[in-house]
């Protein structure tokens, strides 16, 4: 029974996930657990310089050791974008699989494959490369200045070659309304600069690929990816292998957080090696290589907001520069999303935005859970607190007055993707959360004097569920589902959608069981690959439940229709008068005529009869495009304690509220919020990958010893972490459900930062808020 009054049988129940035991017992098989007979092991030669040209490369010794070696010369010189989610006219291409012009420390130059990883490593160390070392540029603002080193002369936009000026990768400007007039009407105008950090995804599973060259000239691929179909398309684009001969298997992921939205370089490198060696090749990155493979986007914001005395916002202006590292994964769509995140938090009658993506000689940036939304939300929520204070209003009331909610136009995925919000639980989240944390009793900023000071902060946010829209736009977003009914009444569910670990496919199984009226156990999530599935774009944009579940629901509806149709023949009844109920004892669904005794048949018997009567397989295949991308909403209330002597911050208590529509898996949903808070905590107080100006390499050189993420022991006790759901019904979602994965994190850092400010009476405009920075700020405050 859900809050919205709808009653469900399996949705909302606490059920054990099908792959849960295997995962916790170490029996699940991830990409790097796969082995093939006769398999070679690969290693990659990486650039030690942040900016260089390869003058010469001598691989003779490595080949003498028996290794298969490839360099940039062995791979088609096709410039590509590793992420194939945008349409061609919105896709910038500046990558090569292996390069002779490395643009960051760690960029792959060559690769070897040998009988063991140790032999491959020895072969790798025997390769001699002569570099012409070029001047690197590590700071995005420096990079924009004329006269400095240029990273790319030209890049491709779609198929068109474009010149790059001032290392400007791409830009976007958006304006609506009369901004000058808006600021003129404001009683208070604040303008601030905010800086975020470059974080590493720290996903448990490092990037890995195993490739088998097939006799027909094709390849089979077992790899870390959030999208098997886009991986296939990219391998086709680079190597020209017919798409139908590229078989990418869907595997469980050990976390990803956006680091495999695109096809990781390990995949085309392993493909090239396997094609050359004529043998299976496995390439699994070390943790250090993985940290040289992907990073989050660092953003530098200049934000100006105006508000009236009564707390109404009048205008906003945002200028954003983001450091994208050496290549574009999805910088251009992100420019659109950042403005979308910004204007969809609070109503701005007029607004102006300029976003610029800048190349630097650093590890390429890609999406990291929230795709710029956590950074944007931290910025907005920081300033909203300040504005509320400036007009003398409770920050919570200020938010209630301005938030974008039901009936409002929603820009979620950027200016070209607009829709109207149809479900929204923001007010209830804020009111209940405030009560649970004791918002009224929070200290006044800066009034405490002792060594340990406590503060309560609020961060509110949202994320889109999928990137669907009423119009095609420039983002691909659709899913596919195949269902077939087996002779014993079990159901095979076949999908290309990848589970990043959050339980997306488990949710689909529940949706299917709910619709078909069968026990959850009979829905079987089938192992699948690109040859046996319909296209699914990617597990990203918090679309797993909403879009993938939407496809599963529609496939289930079709199958249900067919079941009832056939059962009607057998039972001599009308299909629309039949229903299905689960029979736990028989372990399957029973189709029956309401109120008529004896008119019933199990799904298994019906399917078997259909076989004997040659009626065919009861099955469906559905490709589904969501017509909107509704926001799911969250808020965090965090209480922290700051040790003003050491600058250390400790989370004391957390209250988190979420509106994700219908809750499908309460335990997993709660887990998402716990994990989201931990990641937000890392963003707020801990994580960054600074570079060594001498070497141009990561200061931590890829060692996790010096890239710290919070562990369970750094989080509040479970009893002090309260999660509640405000159930709404999203009319466009499967059974009223929306997404969760990203809003589970988005406002967490903002809540923590606001709590620190509440405790100390000092604002921080740069993340992470480290002990060093806290002590410095306290000294300056005096």
């Amino acid at each position: 029974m859900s809050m919205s009054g709808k009653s469900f049988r399996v949705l909302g129940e606490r059920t054990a996930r099908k792959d849960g035991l295997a995962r916790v017992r170490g029996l699940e098989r991830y990409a790097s657990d796969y082995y093939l007979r006769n398999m070679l092991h690969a290693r990659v030669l990486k650039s030690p310089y942040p900016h260089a040209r390869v003058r010469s490369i001598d691989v003779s010794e490595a080949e003498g050791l028996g290794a298969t070696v490839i360099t940039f010369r062995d791979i088609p010189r096709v410039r590509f974008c590793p992420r194939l989610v945008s349409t061609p006219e919105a896709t910038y291409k500046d990558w090569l699989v292996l390069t002779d012009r490395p643009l960051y420390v760690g960029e792959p130059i060559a690769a070897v494959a040998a009988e063991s990883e140790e032999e491959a490593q020895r072969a790798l160390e025997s390769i001699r490369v002569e570099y012409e070392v070029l001047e690197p540029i590590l700071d995005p603002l420096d990079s924009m200045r004329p006269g400095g080193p240029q990273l790319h002369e030209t890049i491709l936009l779609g198929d068109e070659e474009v010149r790059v000026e001032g290392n400007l990768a791409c830009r976007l400007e958006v304006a609506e309304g009369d901004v000058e007039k808006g600021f003129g009407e404001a009683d208070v105008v604040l303008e601030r600069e905010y800086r975020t950090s470059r974080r590493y995804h720290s996903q448990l599973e490092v990037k890995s690929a195993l490739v088998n060259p097939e006799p027909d000239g094709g390849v089979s691929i077992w790899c870390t990816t959030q999208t098997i179909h886009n991986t296939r398309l990219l391998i086709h684009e680079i190597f020209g292998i017919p798409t139908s001969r590229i078989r990418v298997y869907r595997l469980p992921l050990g976390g990803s957080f956006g680091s495999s939205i695109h096809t990781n370089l390990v995949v085309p490198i392993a493909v090239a090696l396997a094609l050359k060696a004529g043998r299976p090749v496995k390439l699994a990155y070390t943790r250090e290589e993985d940290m040289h493979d992907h990073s989050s986007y660092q953003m530098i914001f200049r934000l100006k907001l105006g508000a009236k005395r009564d707390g109404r916002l009048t205008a906003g202006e945002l200028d954003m520069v983001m450091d994208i590292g050496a290549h574009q994964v999805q910088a251009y769509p992100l420019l659109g999303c950042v403005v979308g995140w910004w204007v969809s938090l609070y109503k701005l009658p007029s607004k102006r935005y300029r976003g610029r993506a800048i190349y630097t000689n650093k590890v390429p940036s890609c999406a990291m859970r929230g795709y710029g939304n956590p950074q944007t939300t931290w910025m907005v929520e920081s300033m909203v607190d300040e504005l509320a204070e400036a007009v003398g209003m409770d920050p919570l009331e200020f938010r209630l007055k301005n938030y974008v909610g039901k009936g409002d136009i929603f820009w979620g995925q950027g200016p070209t993707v607009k829709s109207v919000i149809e479900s929204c639980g923001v007010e209830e989240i804020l009111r209940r959360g405030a009560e649970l944390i004791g918002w009224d009793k929070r200290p006044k900023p800066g009034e405490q004097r002792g060594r340990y000071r406590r503060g309560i902060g609020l961060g509110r946010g949202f994320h889109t569920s999928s990137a669907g829209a009423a119009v095609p736009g420039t983002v691909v977003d659709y899913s596919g589902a195949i269902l077939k009914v087996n002779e014993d009444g079990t159901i095979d569910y076949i999908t290309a959608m990848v589970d990043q670990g959050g339980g997306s496919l488990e949710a689909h199984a529940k949706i299917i069981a709910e619709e078909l009226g069968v026990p959850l156990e009979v829905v079987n999530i089938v192992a699948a690959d690109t040859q046996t599935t319909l296209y699914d774009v990617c597990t990203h944009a918090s679309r797993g439940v909403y879009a993938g579940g939407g496809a599963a629901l529609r496939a289930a509806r079709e199958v249900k229709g067919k079941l009832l149709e056939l059962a009607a023949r057998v039972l001599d009844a009308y299909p629309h008068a039949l229903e299905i109920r689960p029979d736990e004892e028989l372990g399957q669904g029973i189709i029956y005529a309401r109120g008529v005794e004896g008119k019933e048949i199990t799904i298994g018997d019906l399917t078997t009869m259909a076989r004997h009567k040659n009626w065919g397989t009861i099955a469906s295949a559905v490709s589904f495009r969501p017509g909107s991308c509704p926001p799911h909403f969250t808020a965090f209330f965090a209480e922290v304690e700051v040790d003003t002597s050491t600058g250390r911050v400790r989370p004391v208590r957390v209250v988190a509220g979420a509106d994700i529509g219908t809750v499908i898996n309460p335990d997993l949903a709660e887990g998402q919020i716990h994990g989201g808070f931990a990641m937000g905590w890392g963003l707020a107080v801990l994580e960054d990958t600074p570079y060594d100006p001498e070497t141009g390499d990561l200061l931590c050189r890829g060692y996790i010893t010096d890239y710290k993420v919070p562990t369970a022991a750094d989080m509040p006790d479970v009893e002090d972490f309260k999660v509640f759901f405000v159930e709404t019904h999203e009319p466009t979602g499967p059974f009223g459900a929306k997404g969760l994965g990203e809003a589970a994190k988005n406002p967490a850092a903002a809540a923590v930062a606001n709590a620190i400010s509440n405790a100390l009476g000092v604002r921080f405009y740069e993340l992470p808020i480290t002990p060093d920075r806290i002590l410095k700020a306290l000294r300056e405050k005096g």
Partner: protein
Amino acid sequence: MEINRVNTRIIPFRFEYHSPSSLGEALTILSRYGSEARILAGGTDLLVDMKQRLVEPRHLVDIKRIPELRLLREDVGGFIIGSAVKLRELERSEAIKGRLPLLHEAVSSMGSVQVRNMATLGGNLCRASPSADAAVALLALEAEVLIAGPTGAKRVPLEGFFLGPRATLLRPDEILTGVYVPYPPEGAGSAFIKLGRTSLDLAIVNIAAALKLRGGIVEHCRIAMGAVAPKPLRLRNIESLLSGRELTPEALEEALGMVEASIKPITDIRATAEYRREVSKVLLRDALKTATERCGGRRS
């Protein structure tokens, strides 16, 4: 180039693995191979060093099967802890917890359960890391190290054992067999504090303090700090300043005033030198306060 040579997974060079079952056998192997050999205890430091190519030994001598190195026993006025005793064993020992709470507190703070299940006390000392947690606690406990070599056994104070990062008194053909840890005086209180970036971290700064008061007067005072100099430090000047005095706010301030001159912290990725200087004082104040509060309790 380093980026293509080092990581934390692959050991591309070949080595021979030895697993002697007696101390004599181990010493013979070490004598035979000299600096080509390395002692392997838990391997939580050594294997990382090998993968990072800081050392490339041709022979590994695993000492975990030598029974006497795995013994934990009471001796006259203290404990003898075999060098191959696992940290987890110390953490779980009621005797250590009761009689050497300072060591217990330090060991329990190290790494994760998985690491403590492998790591040994001897390994922590022999790696001679400036931030070694157990080393700092053992310095404040005035431990002595037991060394066996081709010419026999010797026993030397721990304080002289460390020469700098990764450098100790040990010669390649010698083995640290154990540590003698005397009980702190009856009624003494102690505290170990470690400041890291997260709960699972190497110390930015760590401190161990043992204190005994009689009638408000400091009768026994031992203080050691880590990660503030090339090796774990005993702060003797502060110890003598406080000894024989009452722990008044003035005395404390005087002691804190001496911290900066006693340490030589560096700036690294974990923290700046400035931050280390600042929190060293905070940690000293906190450690003395906690140790004082714990004074006069049980025997410890």
